[in-house]
């Protein structure tokens, strides 16, 4: 097996400049066949620039990107036939129905045998086939966009922030569709700034900040390698509980104005805190002990919160 077939995507020292702005700074990574790979980072980190260079929308400044064994700068025409793309802020023709839109894109790919009904089923749009695009909600539009990205039965699917701007319910519906893709064994390259999305869907995650990849691995490995504590949450706790925890030498923080969150290094510490609260007669409604998530990993690595990190890019990140 050659190197080109081992990895579906190979990014080597990729750099992209917009004038003086360095949007992507010398990044390298690979994606294997059948893998769901997520590029996780805040707005302006360089996610969209990276994915748009790999899926041939943009041109790189330096470095080399190989997709399906082909150089993206030289073989665009051959590459686009074998990939599916949901670009950021996807949109389609207002007055064309769901079914017509899928037929249109399958004709562009000259795919005579596209299973339009199968795609409609996959993205759960069966009762919307005759609906024009302009009448679809944000979630339905994204699901149509994913179906369009699959009309040519692509070997690699690129999804650039597929759930940005969607309400939690619509986001979960899109996640269900993406889990369906994962089950079908598709190679998926996903960008997102939602850590739950990356954690739920991705086999591997690359965390990108200010154009640089700062960590990469499975969500579990990233958390394991970058954190050595547990997070105890005391739900709807009172002020007395807060004071007790603080006096014990821990650093509690108030979350949502009612929950107390505190980092502990050992499970013994959890028991000590609970006993102290009980002895003092302080109150809380429920409790939760869990490992840190990617949000906390990102916070630790960059010192910035994932959703609020400052934007550094222009237009595309």
């Amino acid at each position, binding site marked *: 097996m050659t190197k080109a077939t081992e990895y579906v995507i190979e990014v080597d020292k990729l750099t992209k400049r917009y004038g003086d702005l360095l949007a992507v700074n010398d990044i390298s990574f690979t994606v294997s066949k059948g893998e769901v790979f997520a590029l996780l980072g805040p707005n302006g980190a360089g996610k969209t620039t990276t994915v748009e260079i790999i899926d041939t929308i943009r*041109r790189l400044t330096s470095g080399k990107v190989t997709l399906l064994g082909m150089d993206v700068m030289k073989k665009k025409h051959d590459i686009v036939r074998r990939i599916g793309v949901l670009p950021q802020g996807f949109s389609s023709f207002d007055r064309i129905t769901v079914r017509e839109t899928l037929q249109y894109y399958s004709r562009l790919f000259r795919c005579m045998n596209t299973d339009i009904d199968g795609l409609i089923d996959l993205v759960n749009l069966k009762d919307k086939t005759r609906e024009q695009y302009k009448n679809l909600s944000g979630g339905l539009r994204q699901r149509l966009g994913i179906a369009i990205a699959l009309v040519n039965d692509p070997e690699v699917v690129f999804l650039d922030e597929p759930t940005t701007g969607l309400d939690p319910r619509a986001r979960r519906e899109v996640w269900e569709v993406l889990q369906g893709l994962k089950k079908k064994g598709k190679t998926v390259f996903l960008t997102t700034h939602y850590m739950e999305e990356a954690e739920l869907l991705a086999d591997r995650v690359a965390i990108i900040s200010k154009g640089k990849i700062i960590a990469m691995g499975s969500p579990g490995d990233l958390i394991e390698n970058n954190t050595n504590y547990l997070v105890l949450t005391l739900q709807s706790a009172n002020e007395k509980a807060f004071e007790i925890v603080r006096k014990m030498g821990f650093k509690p923080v108030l979350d949502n104005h009612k929950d107390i969150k505190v980092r502990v290094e050992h499970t013994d510490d959890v028991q000590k805190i609970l006993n102290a609260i009980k002895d003092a007669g302080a109150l809380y409604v429920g409790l939760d002990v869990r490992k840190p998530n990617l949000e906390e990993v990102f916070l630790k690595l960059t010192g910035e919160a994932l959703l609020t990190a400052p934007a550094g890019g222009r237009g595309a990140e």
Partner: protein
Amino acid sequence: MNLHVIGANLVVKLMSVYREKTAMFFTIAFPIILILVFGTIFMSQDNVSFHLCVQDLDQTNLSAQSIKTLELDGKFKMTKVDPAISAAQYVRESKVDLVLVIPKGYERSLLQRTMLGDPNASVTITYIYDPSSSSVLTKMQILNAVIAGINQKMSGTPPFIRSAKTSILTKKYRFIEFFIPGIIAMAVMTLSLFGTVNLNTELRQKGIIRKLSTTPITRTDWILSDILYQFILAVISTIAMLVVSYAVFNVSLHINAWLFAFILLDVFAFVGIGMILTRFAKEAQSAAAAANAISFPMMFLSGSFFPIELMPGFLQTIARILPLYYVNEGLRAAMVFEDNMAALRDSAVIGFFAAVVFILGIMATKWEEGQ
């Protein structure tokens, strides 16, 4: 070039415009409104007749007969003014610009001249007029010509200089028939230019172009499908214009292959320009403003509405470098004069221009971003 892809694009564009009924209606209605407005104005110019008030102070058979003669000339529609009132006051109060006054003693003087041969017998017909009127001088000149004709007849000798009219056309054409080809050229230009600019800037802003760049469609396929789409709209619009022109104004024009050839070249040229504008204009509004800046001078300078010979010399020179001028001239050569050589000449000029802007349009169309 992939016919399958071009066909897919064409179908989507046609379905979109068909479902947007209001846009479709105004696309077709705008040139028809122009034809109806200008056609009505020109129709009255073809059968021009002036309103003329006559005050007959003589009130005799011969004076009445003379008035009848003027009326029969076909240039005037008469209104008789009461001999008892002041003609000048009538002009002021009735808002008319001219009253022709036939003096008392008209019949007597006429008989003296014709029956008795008295060379000194004459009458003076007075024009009471409002000099602020723009058409009164024309009316007086026509009246002078009619009176000169009567005087010449009464002299009994045949005129020395006669005039004869020979039209270069085999058939007499009305101004509306010269106007329709200009409106077709102008409407197709507007349709193609604004259609391309509006559609492409909208698709670019919505990110659809970015999505299309990840499919096998090429820039050439995209522009050719746009040209085909604009051509179909242009043909529909032209048919509507011709139907109205025939039904309302009973025009007589030659419908032949040249008409479709010039429509196609018109579309090619202005879709190409539209593609170039779309490339350089950042937003839909600035693209539309740029399209306006190109189409308006073209519309008025290239002879769509009136012959360029009416314009000053330097503007005529400018007109001859505008592509729409050759579409206007070519369509008139084909539809009015039936001059195939002239049509061929004009089609060669606009064809060359269309080929150049088409290639530039393909080069200017931005498929990848951030290059």
